């Protein structure tokens, strides 16, 4: 029977050794920082900026200021509790208004009541819409008594509306979120190629496996310890990058678009299912690689190939061939789990005292 306490003793020792390995520590800190935080920000800020207008907050004193906006494609954010009739907004963020007979083009509209109006290429959140025509518009958390319009695809019985059709820029957002999401699979799959190679090949080079094998620790406990010592820092580091990345994206979105897109079900499924299974796959493959090589660098180089299934996923997502939905995430997690299981049994079969001492050298 596997005693996890012993496996954890082995893992703790490895973790203590990693603290002294500059390459390992550097990778654990730098990789999530770059892939999980910096890269998402670099990708997202321009997209979020394009997805919605940003401008000066106007202090609305009366209709004069609004009139200024009526005939121009001005960027503005108008936030008032007044009622406006027969007004035209283009590329404007509109909040807390009661709009009648309005024309809204390329706008972000929040917390408004809209009657007998036309809305085109806009994003509508938390609004009540009555007797209006809506085209190419995202509807979120909104409701109304009656709607008509060619582009409306889904309206449910309680008249709460979900997305109808997104604007071109806004449509990019889920794809970009998916690209970023893949990074949180790449990180836990890549880090073990550095960590596990030190943990097993380093031990092999150091000839320190024999004294461990002479203790009452079982082969399974040693293998579990080695897996844990790579899994814990890889996933720990990924988790920190994931939370930081998600918070930063939310902050950027909230500042630029007024809402926080994360966490989504996709993101939760990736961090709880796909990332751990991908990480395990990489670690177990490294255990197999480690049995054949005697050099840490060789293990790291070969380790580059063991993350191929994750690279395939990434290429699929970037090329648009794979769209990460909860279904595809679960599908890939199951696929990786099956690979993990196969690798685990294979690793267990070669991770025995006699082979380690007589064949691994």
């Amino acid at each position, binding site marked *: 029977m596997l005693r996890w306490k012993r496996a954890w003793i082995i893992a703790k020792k490895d973790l203590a*050794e990693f603290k*002294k390995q500059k390459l390992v520590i550097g990778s654990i800190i730098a990789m999530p920082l770059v892939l999980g935080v910096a890269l998402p920000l670099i990708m997202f800020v321009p997209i979020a900026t394009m997805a919605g207008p940003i401008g000066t907050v106007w202090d609305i004193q009366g209709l004069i200021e609004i009139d200024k906006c009526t005939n121009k494609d001005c960027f503005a954010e108008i936030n008032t509790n007044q009622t406006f009739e027969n007004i035209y907004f283009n590329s404007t963020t509109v909040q807390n208004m009661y709009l009648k007979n309005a024309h809204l083009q390329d706008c972000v509209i929040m917390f408004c009541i809209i009657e007998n109006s036309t809305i085109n290429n806009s994003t509508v959140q938390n609004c009540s819409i009555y007797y209006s025509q809506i085209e190419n518009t995202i509807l979120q958390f909104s409701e109304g008594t009656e709607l008509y319009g060619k582009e409306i695809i889904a309206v449910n019985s309680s008249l709460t509306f979900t997305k109808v059709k997104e604007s071109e820029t806004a449509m990019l957002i889920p794809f970009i979120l998916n690209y970023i999401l893949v990074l949180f699979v790449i990180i836990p799959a890549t880090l073990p190629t550095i960590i596990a190679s030190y943990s097993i090949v380093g031990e092999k080079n*150091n*000839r320190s496996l024999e*004294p461990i094998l002479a*203790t*009452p620790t079982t082969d399974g406990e040693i293998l579990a310890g080695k897996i844990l010592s790579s899994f814990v820092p890889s996933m720990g580091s990924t988790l920190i990058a994931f939370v930081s990345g998600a918070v930063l994206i939310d902050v950027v979105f909230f500042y630029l678009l007024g809402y926080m897109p994360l966490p989504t079900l996709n993101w939760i499924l990736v961090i709880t299912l796909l990332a751990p299974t991908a990480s395990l796959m990489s670690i177990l493959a490294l255990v197999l690689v480690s049995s054949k090589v005697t050099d840490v660098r060789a293990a790291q180089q070969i380790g580059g190939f063991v993350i191929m299934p994750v690279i395939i996923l990434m290429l699929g997502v970037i090329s648009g061939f794979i769209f990460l939905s909860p279904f595809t995430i679960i599908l890939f997690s199951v696929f990786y789990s099956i690979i993990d299981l196969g690798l685990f049994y294979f690793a267990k079969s070669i991770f025995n005292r006699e082979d380690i001492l007589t064949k691994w050298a």
Partner: protein
Amino acid sequence: MIVTEGLSKHFGTIKAIDDFTIEIPDGKIFGLLGPNGAGKTTTMRILACLIKPTNGRAFIDGYEIGKENDNQSIRAMIGLLPEVPGLYETLSAYKNLDYYAQLYDVTKSKREENIKNLLTNLDLWERRNDPIGEFSKGMKQKIAIARALVHEPKYLFLDEPTAALDPEASKMIRNYILDLKSQGRTILINTHNLSEAERICDTIAIVKNRLVKVGNPKELAHKLFARTINITLDFIPNSLINDLSALDYVSNIRVEGNKLFLNVKAPEEDNPKIISWLIKKGLNVQYVSEEEYSLEDVYLKLIEEAK
């Protein structure tokens, strides 16, 4: 007690060790001697439950090697010093020992006590927090021995404990091994160092992929070589060799200067008779001694015969 019965280990067509039968009583130091590739390390690894025998059986304290439950009990009773210390260079001496003590399920307070005692006995307590990478070869070997002892094992297996150490460090390690024996531990040593084996081992086994000979170093010499008596006289007459040849308990007589060499079967009985005979002949006996055969002589002869 360690008992092996016809123990064999084959790697493919190579017979690392074959039909190996020995018995090591408790509290003794047993040496395995043999050339490189003679199967010494393989034998030690089988006894440490690291590899399984191909044939034969082995028992330690009644537990049979190869049975998984028994293996766990045996491993808990054994302390192993492998050929290479295999310590963690970036960790401190204390952490190295503490890690192994935890793997042997030693309680925290006992770990602290044992590590302190071992490092103090080995003059390394002051260096306990230094990384092993900063230690000399001899110091590392001491730590590796401490590691083998950290769980207070009944049996200690030492593979080349003084290899590559300077004479001072070797002596210190040898003395420490004798101390451990006096504490009642049973010690199995693999070594190439014949003088070391001669000094510390109660019993030795000469191995060359099989058991060539086993016994006390002196007994082995006596069994292998006829016992030669060296008698120094003030003068040796020419007729002496002929006269001595008449004695039925004397053989192989030769003379070098004023020294007379002759073989006898039992010096304890035959020496007084020869001395009396020489005195009766009017010869003055100056010294009498027995020619000593070293373990090296024994070893080389046995290994030559085993080829």
